């Protein structure tokens, strides 16, 4: 029988194992078809479902374009990547794993600053002393821009960072960072502190539905079945 619903699940990284375990608990074990290194699979117990194993970031794009019906990925990636979240996807269920806070963190030694409002004062002083703006290292360009604008902080610029962001203030390539943290251990190890009101987003993995997918035929029924069983297993 040809697949009528495609669901995308993370193929690597911190979300992969937790997602696999959750589907297993729900009685919907995922199994790769064909080659072990392949990227497609089936779902035990539900005919007509095709599983696409993709990176968490790619899942966001596939949901946006409607090439998959459903997907498991992080809320942080969804909010960072999609220009209009509500138009593109529906939040079906939080899944209880992949928890991460997106936060603004500054060097511990900046004992003169505790809140976002202090940051603009530091920006003023920094521009006077160094002739340039504060640099914020992050991969969350859009979340950072929106959050800083809301806090009235403008005297900064973003430097894109895709790995080891928390090391940039010590290395001198940025002054502060916006990054994810779960326990705060990495931040502490790098002598960074989260600003009191510097929590941008409390993120976790969600099950999403793509508004732009083809929802004719059996797709809605399969969606409800998956959602029902996953919700009970979370």
């Amino acid at each position: 029988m040809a697949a009528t619903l495609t669901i995308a699940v993370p193929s690597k990284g911190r979300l992969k194992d937790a997602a696999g375990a959750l589907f297993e608990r729900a009685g919907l074990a995922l199994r790769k078809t064909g080659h072990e290194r392949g990227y497609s699979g089936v779902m035990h117990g539900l005919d007509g479902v095709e599983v696409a194993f993709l990176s968490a970031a790619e899942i966001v794009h596939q949901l946006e374009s409607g090439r998959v019906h459903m997907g498991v990925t992080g809320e942080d990636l969804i909010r960072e990547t999609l220009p209009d979240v509500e138009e593109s996807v529906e939040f079906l269920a939080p899944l209880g794993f992949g928890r991460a806070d997106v936060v603004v963190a500054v060097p511990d030694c900046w004992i003169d600053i505790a809140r976002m409002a202090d940051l603009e004062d530091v920006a003023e002083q920094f521009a006077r002393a160094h002739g340039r703006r504060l640099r914020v290292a992050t991969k969350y360009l859009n979340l950072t821009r929106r959050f800083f604008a809301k806090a009235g902080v403008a005297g900064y610029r973003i430097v894109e960072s895709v790995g080891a962001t928390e090391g940039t203030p010590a290395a001198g390539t940025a002054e502060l960072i916006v990054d994810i943290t779960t326990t705060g251990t990495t931040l502490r190890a790098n002598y960074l502190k989260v600003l009191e009101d510097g929590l941008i987003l409390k993120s976790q993995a969600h099950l999403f539905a793509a508004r732009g997918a083809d929802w004719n035929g059996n797709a809605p029924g399969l969606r409800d079945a998956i959602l029902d069983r996953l919700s009970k297993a979370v």
Partner: protein
Amino acid sequence: MAAESARKFEALEAQAATLLDVFRRGGYEQVAPSIIQPADVLLDRIGEAIRGRTYVFTDLSGEELCLRPDLTVPVSRLYLERHPPADAPARYCYNGPAFRFQPKGSGGTHPREFRQAGIECFGVADRDSADAEVVLLVADAVRSAGLREFRFRFGDIALFYALLDALSLPERWRLKLRHYFWRPPAFHALLSRLAKGEAPDSDGPVAEFAATLADMDPARAEELVANYLETHGLPLSGNRALGEITERLLDHAADLRSEPLPREVATVIDYYLAVEASPREAIDRIAMIAKGAGIDLGPALYVLSRRFDLLQERGIDIGGASFASEFGRDLEYYSGLVFQIETGGDGTSSIAGGGRYDGLLRSVGAPAEVPAVGSAIHTERLLAAIEGES
């Protein structure tokens, strides 16, 4: 997505030829700065608001580059390349594409790829006459292109700085207010916070520590801060020097002890920023505000008044123009006169803008501050306005 960037290619080309002709006859040499610019310098000047709309990319060698979002910074860099000591006067004109992402979609009056024609005047020490020269030349250019009805809107950043200098304020607040001028919502919050006398978070261990530094000699305070960091195991990082952290703690300590900003001072600033009228009326009102507050704005107001006389004598309709103290608060590199040319009934369509930006060249590498003033015309909008008139 439009396959053709300039749909009115021939009309725009003909218009650009007219504009450049006026500029060249005015003594401005035509230049063509690179379209692809180093992202670092450009975006550091221009701020994250425009960075968010700039096309930034990394090339195969790993260099971070961008498509220029406007031409002022690229022409400034070109001037420095030709005159590294930045000590010679130079006048440049240009016509070429600039690129900005349009969040609401690329369209007729907001294309993502648009052409700017403009002039930049560097190193002319007589600032008043250089300001007038640029305003007059741009007016002449849009008139030659065929625009009949337009109005000027003016502002003056230097006058705001003169006001702050004249008011009796602690220097740390003056610096803060100068900086926050560019962040209107935060500026207002800051002003009312200072006026209410709310001490910035005066609890917590750090505030306690800061309070012990009050009125201390900076060198001694720095030693204590160094000790504090060492005892608490906090190594310096993030490029701020010990002295900078100490300076802010001292400011903080001073804020805890100081009287709030007098209500009258906050009111004077509020009144000043609310001034919006014809230039003559605005000058009268600002003079009255200053007189009422018992302060002397120095030569700034006289300079502004004389500038308008000069422009009027040379044929600019000053009576039909407007002046707003707030105007120009969105482009951080301006330092003096700012202006735009508006058309249309409600005055919302800006077809050209410009101003003085004396601090910019130093920040892109000049050894000292360089007097600079310029203006750019949004050529698609100019063409649309002219077509709308006929």
